[in-house]
C-alpha cells in the first residue's frame, strides 16, 4: 500500500492509497493514529488525488479519524476527490461530516 504522510506545523496531509478498502484500512488507521498522537495534529487533510477506488471500509476509517480529531477539537477535510470518490462520499453521507475542498476552477473576475 502506498500511503504518504506529510506533517507541517500541526497539520497532517495523508496521501490516500490507490485503493482504499478493508485490506489497507488497518494499516492506515494505525499509522494515522500514531502520527496524530505523536505530533499533536490539529488539522487533518485526506488527499484523494491518487485514489481510484474506495468502499465502505474506507468510510469507516475516515469516520473513525473524524471522531478522534473531534474529541481533541481538531479539524478534518478532504481534497482532490475524483467524480467516483465524490459519489462514494454522497452515497454514504460523508460529505456532511467532512469538509470537502472543491477542485472547481477559479472563476475569472
Amino acid at each position, binding site marked *: 500500500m502506498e500511503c504518504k504522510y506529510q506533517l507541517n506545523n500541526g497539520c497532517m496531509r495523508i496521501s490516500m492509497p490507490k485503493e482504499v*478498502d*478493508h485490506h489497507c484500512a488497518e494499516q492506515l488507521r494505525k499509522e494515522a493514529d500514531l502520527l496524530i498522537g505523536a505530533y499533536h495534529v490539529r488539522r487533518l487533510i485526506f488527499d484523494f488525488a491518487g485514489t481510484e477506488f474506495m468502499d465502505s471500509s474506507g468510510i469507516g476509517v475516515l469516520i473513525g479519524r473524524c471522531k478522534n480529531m473531534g474529541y481533541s477539537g481538531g479539524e478534518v477535510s478532504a481534497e482532490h476527490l475524483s467524480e467516483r470518490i465524490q459519489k462514494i462520499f454522497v452515497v454514504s453521507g460523508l460529505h456532511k461530516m467532512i469538509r470537502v475542498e472543491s477542485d472547481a476552477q477559479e472563476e475569472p473576475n
Partner: protein
Amino acid sequence: MKNEMQVEFDAKSVNEGFARVTVAAFLTQLDPTLDEIADVKTAVSEAVTNAIIHGYEGGEGKVCVSCRLNGNQAVITVEDEGVGMEDVKKAMEPFYTTKPELERSGMGFAFMEAFMDEMQVESASGIGTKVIMTKKIGAKEEKDRDGCGDSAH
C-alpha cells in the same frame, strides 16, 4: 448470449482486490461504462469483505464468487460457509454493524443496494451466507442506439 464464470479463493483480505478486478474483467465483454464497472467493483468488494470479516470472522475459509451473464444482465453471487446471520433484515439496516470495534461503518449492504439494480441475501446461522446481486450492463449502448433512430442499413 449466456456466459458464466466462478472463482473460489481463501478468505484473506489480500483477495478482496483480486475478486473485484476479476469480476470487472469478465464483464468487459458487455462493453460496460466506467461507472458501471466502478459500481460492480464496489458491490463485489462489500460482499467479499463481509464474507471475510463477518462470515469467517478473520479465520480460515473459502469465498466463492460467480458471475453469470444473461443478455446484458449480470448476476453476481458471493458465497461463504461462515457463521451466517440470524436476522438478515436487521443486518441490512443502514449503519447496523456487529463489529463497531473494527471501525465498520455498517454501510456495506446499503452500498450494494445503491450500486446494483437488485440484491438478495440468503443466510442461515451456522451454515453460511449467499449474496445475489444483479445489474443491467450497457445502458450507454442502448442510449446510443436510441439516438440513431432508424438510420440506413
